[in-house]
C-alpha cells in the first residue's frame, strides 16, 4: 500500500516537474522532448489508474503522434540547420 | 402521434449534415457537392420545420427527449428538444439553405469548393449537435466540431491574415473547450452524471459547483467572445470568406451563448449568484459600448461588421442581470429570455446579410477600406441597400426584428427597474447608428476615382444577401408567432428558472 502510494507520489511529482520543465525549457526542442517524456510518464499513471485503453491510446497518440507532429513542425519553424541547405 | 413520429427525426438534425459532409468529402467534385448540399439543406429545413410543428403540437412541460441507442441517460446519451433549441435549429436550417445557395456562387473554384462543402456540413452538424445536446460531454465534442470546423473554414480564405486569425481562433477554441471539459469533469466527479437534466436536478450551490460553473463559463465565454475575451473574434470574422463570416457571426457564437443560457439558467442555476449575473451584464454593457466604438474607429468594412458582432453579443448578456432582477416574477425572466431569443434570431439574419453585402463590396472593389468606398451606393445599390437594411435591424430601428428584440429587452429592463441597462441599450443603438451611418455616408458620396475593374458579383448573389436583410425586417412583423414559440415552450426551455429563487 505504501509502495503504491510512493509510486503514485513519484509519478505525480514527476508529471508536475516534467510539465514545468517542458514549459520553462529554453529551447523548443527540449520542450518537445520533455513533453513526450511527460506523455510516457502519463501513460504509466493511466496504467496505475487502471485505464489500460487510455494508456495505449496515450502512448500511441498522445505522446507518440503529437510528439511526432510537434517535431516535424519544429523542423520547419526553428531548426535552421535542417532548412539551410535547401534555401 | 404525428409529433412522436416527427420527434424520431431528431437525430437527423445531426445525421443529415454528417451524411452530407461525407458525401461531399468523398466525391469532391463541385457539382456533386452542390447537388448534395442543396438536397440536404432542404431536407434539413424540412426536418426542422417538422420538429417545430411537433413541438408546437405537444403541450408538455418537460422538454422532449430522445435516447440515442435506447440506453437512456445517464449511461446513454439523450437528445433534448425544447422551444429554444427548436428555434435555434430552425434559424440554422434557414440560414444554411440561404448561405448554401450563396456559397454555390461564391465558391466557383473547384479546389476551394471541395474543401468548403464538407467542412460546411460538418460545422452545421456541430451546431445542430450543440443545440439538441442533452449531455455535458457531448456538448464538448460538439463544441470542438464547431471550433475546429470554423477554424478550417476561415483558413479556406488562404490569406495570411485569415490563417493567422484562424490559428488564434483555434488556440482560443482549444483553451476554451479544455476549460469547459474541466468543468464537466468536476461536475461528473461530484454528481456522477453527465445528463443535463439530471445535473439540473442534482446541483446544489457549493464550492465545487461554483468552480465548475466558473470553468464552464470561462470556456463558453471564450467562445462567445464576451468583452475581455473577444480579442480573437474581429480578425477571424473579418478575414473569413463571406458565407463563413456570416455563419460565424450569425450562429457559431450563438451556439456557445445558447449553451451558456442552458448552464446558467437551467443546469447550474442553483449555483448562480446575482452578483455573477450582474457581472456578466456589466461586461455585456461594456461590450456594447466598446464594440460600437471599435467598429466606428476601424478602417475596414468587414472588421467593422465584426466589431459590431462584439457589440451585439453584449446585448445578449444583458439577459443575465435581467433574469437576476426578476426574482419574484417568472414572467419577467421569461420576457427577458424571449427578448434574447428574438435578439439572437434578428441578429443572425441581419449580421449574415451584412457580411454578405460587405463581402460583395469587397469582391467588387478589391478592398474594403471604408474611406475609399465612395460611390458604392451607385455602383452596387443592392449591396448597400442590404447593408443599410441590416444596419437598421442592428441599430434596432423599427420595423425590424432588431427593433422588436430591443423593444422586448427594454421592456424587461424597465419592468425590472434597471435604468442602467436601458441607457446602455439606447446608447448602443445610437452608437450603432453612428458606425453604420459612417459607412452609408461614404457609400452615398460621389466617386472621384474610376470604377474598379474587378469582376462584378452576380446580382443573384447580392439578392441573396438582400433577402436575408429583408427577412430580418419582416421578422419585425411576425413577432408574435415566434414569440409564442419561444414563450409557450419557454418555461420548459428553462425549467430551472421557476426554481431559481
Amino acid at each position, binding site marked *: 500500500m505504501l509502495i*503504491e*502510494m510512493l509510486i*503514485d507520489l513519484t509519478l*505525480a511529482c514527476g*508529471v*508536475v516537474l516534467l*510539465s*514545468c520543465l*517542458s*514549459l520553462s525549457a529554453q529551447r*523548443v526542442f527540449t*520542450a*518537445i522532448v520533455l*513533453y513526450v517524456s*511527460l506523455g510516457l510518464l*502519463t501513460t504509466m*499513471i*493511466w496504467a496505475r*489508474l*487502471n*485505464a489500460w*485503453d*487510455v494508456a495505449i*491510446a*496515450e502512448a500511441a*497518440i*498522445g505522446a507518440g*503522434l*503529437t510528439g511526432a*507532429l*510537434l517535431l*516535424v*513542425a*519544429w523542423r*520547419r*519553424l*526553428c531548426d535552421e540547420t535542417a532548412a539551410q541547405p535547401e534555401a | 402521434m404525428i409529433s412522436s413520429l416527427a420527434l424520431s427525426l431528431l437525430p437527423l438534425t445531426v445525421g443529415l449534415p454528417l451524411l452530407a459532409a461525407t458525401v461531399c468529402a468523398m466525391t469532391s467534385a463541385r457539382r456533386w457537392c452542390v447537388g448534395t448540399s442543396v438536397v440536404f439543406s432542404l431536407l434539413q429545413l424540412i426536418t426542422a420545420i417538422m420538429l417545430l410543428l411537433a413541438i408546437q403540437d405537444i403541450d408538455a412541460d418537460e422538454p422532449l427527449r430522445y435516447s440515442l441507442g435506447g440506453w437512456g441517460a445517464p449511461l446513454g446519451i439523450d437528445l433534448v428538444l425544447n422551444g429554444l433549441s427548436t428555434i435555434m435549429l430552425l434559424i440554422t436550417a434557414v440560414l444554411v439553405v440561404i448561405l448554401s445557395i450563396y456559397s454555390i456562387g461564391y465558391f466557383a473554384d473547384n479546389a476551394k469548393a471541395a474543401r468548403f462543402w464538407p467542412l460546411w456540413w460538418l460545422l452545421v452538424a456541430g451546431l445542430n449537435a450543440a443545440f439538441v445536446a442533452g449531455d455535458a*460531454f457531448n456538448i*464538448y465534442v460538439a463544441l*470542438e466540431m464547431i*471550433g*475546429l470546423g470554423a477554424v478550417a473554414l476561415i483558413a479556406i480564405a488562404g490569406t*495570411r491574415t485569415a*490563417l*493567422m486569425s*484562424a*490559428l488564434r481562433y*483555434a*488556440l482560443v*477554441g*482549444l*483553451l476554451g*473547450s*479544455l476549460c469547459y*471539459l*474541466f468543468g464537466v*469533469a468536476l461536475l*461528473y*466527479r461530484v454528481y456522477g452524471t*453527465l445528463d443535463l437534466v439530471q445535473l439540473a436536478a442534482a446541483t446544489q450551490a457549493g464550492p465545487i459547483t461554483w468552480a465548475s460553473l466558473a470553468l464552464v463559463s470561462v470556456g463558453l465565454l471564450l467562445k462567445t467572445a464576451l468583452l475581455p475575451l473577444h480579442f480573437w473574434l474581429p480578425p477571424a470574422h473579418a478575414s473569413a470568406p463571406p458565407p463563413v463570416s456570416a455563419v460565424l457571426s450569425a450562429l457559431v457564437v450563438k451556439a456557445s451563448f445558447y449553451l451558456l443560457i442552458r448552464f446558467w439558467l437551467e443546469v447550474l442555476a442553483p449555483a448562480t449568484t446575482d452578483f455573477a449575473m450582474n457581472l456578466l451584464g456589466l461586461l455585456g454593457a461594456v461590450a456594447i459600448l466598446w464594440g460600437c466604438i471599435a467598429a466606428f474607429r476601424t478602417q475596414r468594412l468587414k472588421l467593422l461588421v465584426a466589431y459590431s458582432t462584439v457589440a451585439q453579443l453584449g446585448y445578449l448578456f444583458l439577459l443575465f442581470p435581467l433574469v437576476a432582477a426578476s426574482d419574484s416574477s417568472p414572467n419577467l425572466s421569461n420576457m427577458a429570455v424571449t427578448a434574447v431569443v428574438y435578439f439572437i434570431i434578428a441578429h443572425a439574419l441581419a449580421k449574415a446579410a451584412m457580411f454578405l453585402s460587405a463581402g460583395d463590396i469587397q469582391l467588387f472593389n478589391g478592398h474594403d477600406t471604408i474611406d475609399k468606398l465612395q460611390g458604392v451606393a451607385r455602383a452596387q445599390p443592392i449591396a448597400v441597400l442590404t447593408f443599410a437594411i441590416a444596419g437598421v435591424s442592428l441599430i434596432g430601428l423599427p420595423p425590424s426584428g432588431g427593433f422588436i428584440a430591443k423593444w422586448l429587452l427594454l421592456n424587461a429592463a424597465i419592468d425590472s427597474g434597471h435604468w442602467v441597462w436601458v441607457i446602455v441599450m439606447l446608447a448602443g443603438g445610437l452608437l450603432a447608428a453612428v458606425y453604420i451611418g459612417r459607412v452609408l455616408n461614404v457609400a452615398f458620396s460621389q466617386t472621384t476615382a474610376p470604377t474598379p475593374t474587378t469582376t462584378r458579383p452576380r446580382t443573384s448573389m447580392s439578392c441573396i444577401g438582400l433577402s436575408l436583410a429583408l427577412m430580418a425586417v419582416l421578422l419585425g412583423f411576425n413577432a408574435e408567432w415566434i414569440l409564442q414559440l419561444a414563450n409557450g415552450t419557454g418555461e420548459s426551455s428553462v425549467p430551472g428558472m421557476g426554481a431559481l429563487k
Partner: protein
Amino acid sequence: MTQDLLYNATGIALFGIGVFGAIVAAHIIRKLIALNIMGIGVFMVLLATARHGEITDPVPHAMVLTGIVVAVAGTALCLWLTLRIRLLDDVNEGDPQR
C-alpha cells in the same frame, strides 16, 4: 481515496500549469504543449474520478479517449496553420531577393 485525491490534485496542478503556459508562452509550439498539458490535467481528473476502489467507471475512460483524439486533431490543425503561415512568410521574404 488518497490516490484519488493525489491524482485529482496533480490534474489540477497540471491544468493550472497548462493555463499559465498557454497564456504566457509566446512560441506556438510551447503554447500547444501547454494546451496538451492542460488536456492531460483534465484527463487525470477524469480518470482519477473513474477509480472507485475495485470498480472502474468506463465512462470517463471513453471520454478521455475521445478527448485525446480531439486534442491531437486540434494540435495537428494548429500546426498545419502555423506551417502554412510560415510558408507564406517565406515566400514573401524570398520575393525581394529574386
